[in-house]
């Protein structure tokens, strides 16, 4: 029997993560994500897990990577300013292939900004926040219930591809309370880390068989000794100065995501089959868009919603498949136009792409969206 509970998005993130097997959390208080740390402090000891409040966000992500290397599923949660501080070590996680989940409950920026107000201004930071070319998987939930199930998927992808996964929430979903029907735990699909070294002659800890992308992993302190580094390294895990090996390594790291986009990408499409106008949105903006789509349909307008659930990589193939029927795209985000850039890249001038955004910490209403839909011709106003 599934049970129904009244829950906040931040609480659903905790419960979903615990269901996914997360047993280590390190974090630092920051609005509007703090309930996640509080929830983990309460829940993890009950499950035999560990919580620690670190001295800042830099050490939080570092402790998470350390715990994951030592064999635990691990998570941290923060908001914009803390997410900025974590970026160097997120790149370390990508380079050293240490799975973990980083929750960013976005708030209004830049800088300290409007700490309690909603925003989706970290969309590009989630992709390009750390230096160098690196793989990124980022998922963004639209509802409290989806927060619960999607964070499980975030852990599954992180373990499967051995890479940090960004769980891109926003203040709207993080602080919204709603009835949630939690799935029966026995129905959940939980990925465990591919473990142990490869048999046979090749005992290299980063050895990847031909045709595969992800090396198996062994935790620290359970037998075979190996080295982990953020320097360019060969399959033995030791630093190299060879441009050939470094290029091959970074290429493989990028391929883990790029060659598996069909497995990683998920989209929610509503009323898209005959739509002539698609509204592209993600996360907490979705509710207003759904209302606007329903109102437009009632008025006989052929409008649909295209919502990336996997926001990085952007579900390019799915959007391309919709382009032949579409006459117009309206991208709606609580920022100055970030996912818009991905949409424009994919559309490439084939049709008009409009934008509705907000950068003042208030929320976009269904009426705002309908008004924008009914504006004459393409425009770019805010």
């Amino acid at each position, binding site marked *: 029997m599934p049970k129904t509970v009244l829950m906040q998005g931040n609480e659903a993130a905790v419960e979903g993560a615990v269901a996914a097997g997360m047993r*280590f959390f*390190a974090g630092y208080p920051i609005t509007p994500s703090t309930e996640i740390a509080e929830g983990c402090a309460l829940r993890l*000891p*009950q499950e*035999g*897990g*560990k919580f*620690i409040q*670190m*001295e*800042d966000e*830099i*050490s*939080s992500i*570092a*402790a*998470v*990577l*350390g*715990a*994951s*290397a*030592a*064999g*635990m599923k*691990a998570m941290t949660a923060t908001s914009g300013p803390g997410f900025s501080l974590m970026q*160097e*070590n997120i790149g*370390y996680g990508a380079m050293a292939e240490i799975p973990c989940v980083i929750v960013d409950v976005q708030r209004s920026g830049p800088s300290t900004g409007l700490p309690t107000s909603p925003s989706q201004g970290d969309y590009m930071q989630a992709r390009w926040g750390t230096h160098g070319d690196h793989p990124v998987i980022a998922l963004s939930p639209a509802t409290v219930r989806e927060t619960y199930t999607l964070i499980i998927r975030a852990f599954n992808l992180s373990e499967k591809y051995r890479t940090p996964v960004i769980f891109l929430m926003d203040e709207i979903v993080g602080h919204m309370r709603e009835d949630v029907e939690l799935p029966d735990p026995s129905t959940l699909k939980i990925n465990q880390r591919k473990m142990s070294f490869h048999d046979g002659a090749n005992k290299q800890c980063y050895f990847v068989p031909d045709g595969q992308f992800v090396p198996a992993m062994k*935790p*620290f*302190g*359970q*037998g075979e*000794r*190996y*080295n*982990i*580094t*953020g*320097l360019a390294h060969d399959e033995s895990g*030791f*630093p190299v100065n060879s441009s050939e090996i470094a290029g091959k390594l970074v290429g493989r790291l990028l391929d883990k995501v790029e060659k598996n986009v069909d497995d990683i990408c998920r989209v929610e499409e509503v009323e898209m089959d005959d739509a002539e106008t698609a509204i592209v949105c993600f996360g907490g903006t979705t509710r207003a868009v759904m209302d606007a789509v329903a109102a437009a349909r009632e008025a006989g307008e052929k409008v649909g919603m295209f919502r990336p659930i996997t926001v990085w990589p952007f579900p390019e193939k799915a959007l391309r498949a919709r382009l032949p029927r579409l006459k117009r795209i309206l991208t709606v985000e609580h920022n100055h136009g970030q996912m818009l850039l991905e949409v424009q890249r994919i559309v490439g001038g084939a049709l008009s792409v409009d934008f509705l955004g907000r950068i003042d910490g208030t929320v976009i209403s269904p009426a705002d969206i309908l008004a924008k839909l009914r504006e004459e011709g393409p425009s770019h106003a805010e």
Partner: protein
Amino acid sequence: MPSDLVHLYMRIDHLPQIWCPGCGNGVIMRDVAVAIDELIHDEDNPIKREDIVIVSGIGCSSRAAGYLDFNSIHTTHGRAIAFATGIKMANPRLHVIVLTGDGDCSAIGGNHLIHAARRNLGLTVICFNNDIYGMTGGQYSPTTPNGDKATTAPYGNVDRPFDIAQLASGAGASFSARGDIYHARETIEIIKQAILHKGFSLVDVYSICPTYYGRKNKKGDAVEMLKWQRDNLVPTARYYSMSEEDRKNKKLVGILSFNDYPEYTEEYAKIVAACRKTKKG
């Protein structure tokens, strides 16, 4: 022909190491290996080799993690103690040894150092303290003495230096000590005690950097710098037999502070046990 110790505990394929001629870091790395070897072969209470994890940050010191043949993780600049915190929390059975430098652990990583000391998390931090940023070419660090020269202090260092062992003591470290490369046997004993200590332990080991610090400050070659250590750093027994007057301008090689505060992961385990009991009951 490398010694048995090298064969046993170092990754021969990755030697020779990158350190400059006369650098003290190799001595400290050797001291750590000897200390571990003696603890592994302790008749009463041996530690297990597979339970040792070496964690390092960035800088000259931190290359040691790659040479020592244990579980090793070479992390980001300043964050070794924070990575180590996660490792120790995840698996408290492990002996987590952080190899770091004066810049890595007291400048960029200073915050993590004092907080790990305050928590009394059971890590062992060995600081390779050479008073300078060597890897980047001789800039002043938080331990460069006032008035000394560095590439970023061409007119003399205006900053006042940290005493890292005292800093750790002040932050509540339950074991804080000082070692050096001249008094190797004493330093090895201190490192052994630090590893066996249950709570947070720090050993600030004075290294030498003839290439940058020594040359910039006309300290002579490695031998001259070692002589300075011999004449100015004093092991415990002798130090405490000296008059206060004689102790002026000398520094103790030994344990500065020691107590048996409860260790963090043991305290946390009690919370977990209590929560689980309540949940079952």
